[in-house]
């Protein structure tokens, strides 16, 4: 199991991050200031660190300097969002940068990205009788390759990566068709229908009233 260290001084936000990480099956360890974080890093191994910039006792940039030699990936979380701050954060060696307020999905997507980049997360996802290869964009059902269009595959991958989480139609459009997509939300429904039919996921892709869809292992 992947363990993530959450360094965030605001208790509600720290708990929020932990909740989201748990949903995605990560193990989350929380600390509330820079010094404690440093001690933690020295004692334990972490796969990834979520780091707030403004921290009591030792700020995020200083902490980052100490983390870098260990080769642990770092994602900055900060309330500052001006461009210069972002540039500074990335130049300082963070792997990614997310600014408050953020959405849980967004945070999880970035974590996935970074982990995959570090090869800590395999590109093969197994769901029921499906074998999904994210790198080669291939779906194998009981040993047979299932033909999917690009959009269908992206939709499936997004669902699989956010197991048990409701994905709203807006979010799906934004993620898969892009911000500038002006089509109707019906497009999403059609694609979901096709996925259900092609992969026999009628029981697993649940329609959530007024919101969107959720993939469940029933």
């Amino acid at each position, binding site marked *: 199991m992947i363990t993530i260290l959450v360094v965030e001084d605001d208790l*509600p*936000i720290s708990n*929020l991050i932990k*909740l989201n990480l748990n*949903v995605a099956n990560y193990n989350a360890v929380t600390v*509330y200031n820079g010094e404690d974080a440093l001690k933690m890093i020295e004692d334990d191994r972490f796969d990834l660190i979520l780091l707030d910039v403004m921290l009591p006792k030792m700020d995020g940039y200083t902490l980052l300097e100490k983390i870098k030699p260990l080769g642990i990936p770092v994602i900055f979380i900060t309330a500052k969002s001006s461009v210069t701050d972002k540039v500074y954060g990335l130049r300082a060696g963070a792997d990614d940068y997310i600014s*408050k*307020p953020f959405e*849980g999905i967004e945070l999880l997507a970035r974590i996935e990205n970074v982990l995959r980049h570090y090869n800590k997360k395999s590109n093969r996802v197994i769901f029921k009788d499906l074998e999904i290869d994210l790198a080669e964009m291939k779906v194998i059902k009981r040993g047979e390759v299932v033909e999917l269009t690009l959009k269908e595959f992206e939709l499936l991958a997004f669902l699989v990566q956010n197991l048990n989480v*409701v994905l709203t139609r807006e979010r799906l459009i934004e993620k898969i068709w892009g911000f500038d997509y002006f089509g109707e939300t019906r497009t999403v429904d059609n694609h979901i229908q096709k996925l259900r039919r092609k992969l026999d996921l009628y029981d697993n892709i649940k329609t959530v009233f007024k919101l969107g869809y959720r993939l469940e292992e029933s």
Partner: protein
Amino acid sequence: MKFWQKVFLCNLFVIEILFISASIYLINNSFNINLNTEINSGISEQSRFCSSIETNFYLLKIQKTAGGHNVTVDKESIDSMISTYLSNIREQDIYYEIIDQDDQIIFSNLEMNISAKRDELNTISNKINYIIREVNQKEYLFITQRVDLDSHYYKVTCVKDISKIYINRQYLLDILIRLNIGLSLILIVVTLILSKVLLRPVNKLIRSTQTITEGNFSERVKIVTDDEIGVLSENFNRMAAVVEDKITQLEKISADKQRFIDNLAHELRTPLTSIIGYADFLRTTKYDEESFISSLTYIFQEGKRLEKLAFKLMDLIVLRNKDFKMKEEDLRELLLEVKDTLAPKLAAKGITLEIFSEVLKMKMDCDLIKVLLTNLVDNALKASKSGDKISVKAFKNDEAKIILEVKDMGIGIPKMEIPKVFEPFFMVDKSRSRANNGVGLGLSLCAEIAEIHDAKIEMESDLGKGTIIKVIFNQGFN
């Protein structure tokens, strides 16, 4: 036009008027004196000459009368007498011309041709006429006198070359012109050097103003003279200092504003992140009972935080824009009122609030002082633990200034942080303050209110022992 050019032109103007006119006056004067001397000497010479002609005539007459009696001398012999007499006279630069009454020239050694009308020849007996005439670019003095010899008369003209005086005058005028040119050149050089020297401090000033214009406001002029330029540069420095002060003040204000906005953005984002995040979590995931309750609690708490932030911000904004109604009120009554409103909070935490105050009238905005006091007591309350005491005192000190003092036995503030606590959003221990529902605007608010009442706030604190805050109202306010 450059300064030295102006000075030069002014000087030149004055010198030309004075020097040239004086010189010309002198030259003309000496010329006139010389001319008069020439004329006078010419006239006396002429008289002498005429009388010697007369003497010769009488000698001739005596000779003639030696043989017989009373003979009249005939004109021919007179004429020849004059001619012989004259031909014996050799004088330089003096010429003679004798004309008889029939305008016949008896004698003349004039070598020139006179074309002009000879007015001087219209002479009556014994009157001497003279005229200055230019002939062949030379000036001559013509002196004519009538000489009566018995029944005949002759016009004797003596002509004298006086061109030397004119040449002399011309010579002097030439010198004057040359002198004038030389003088002007010297004047240029002297003015140039002089203005360079005099203007050096001015040029320094100019350079300083340029440096300041380029944005280097700490530039000062270093000029130590006790003349007007010294005064100017002193004033200039004073002005530059005022400008620099103002600018640093403005810069500080704008930096403060920027920091306020940055902090505000941070303070807004933090609760918003929680509210949005938990709400999203609840609507998109399957949660258990525990996370459901805790999520809702966080949403509620953080919503409250935002509400408090909004109210405090509004207070601050009102403070900055409102006209305040200062009225004479009793401070003691106000303290008791605040105690009443805070009573539930105090009781809940098990803290006693003691009030020490006499009747103290002062001019104030009642609502604002209440806000000030509530904030101070609220801070004390948050720093204290159950069973602690908080005391609020109002009294006049030795200087008869009214002092409002809030004292607690709470956790105190580290020495280093004391100056910072008045900054908006600053909290010594963020998580602790946040747990107490603080947003870090209370003391900023207090500082503004104190300023409106012309009061200053002093803070003493011992870590772990307690804090004393004094609001000292200025005397002039009462």
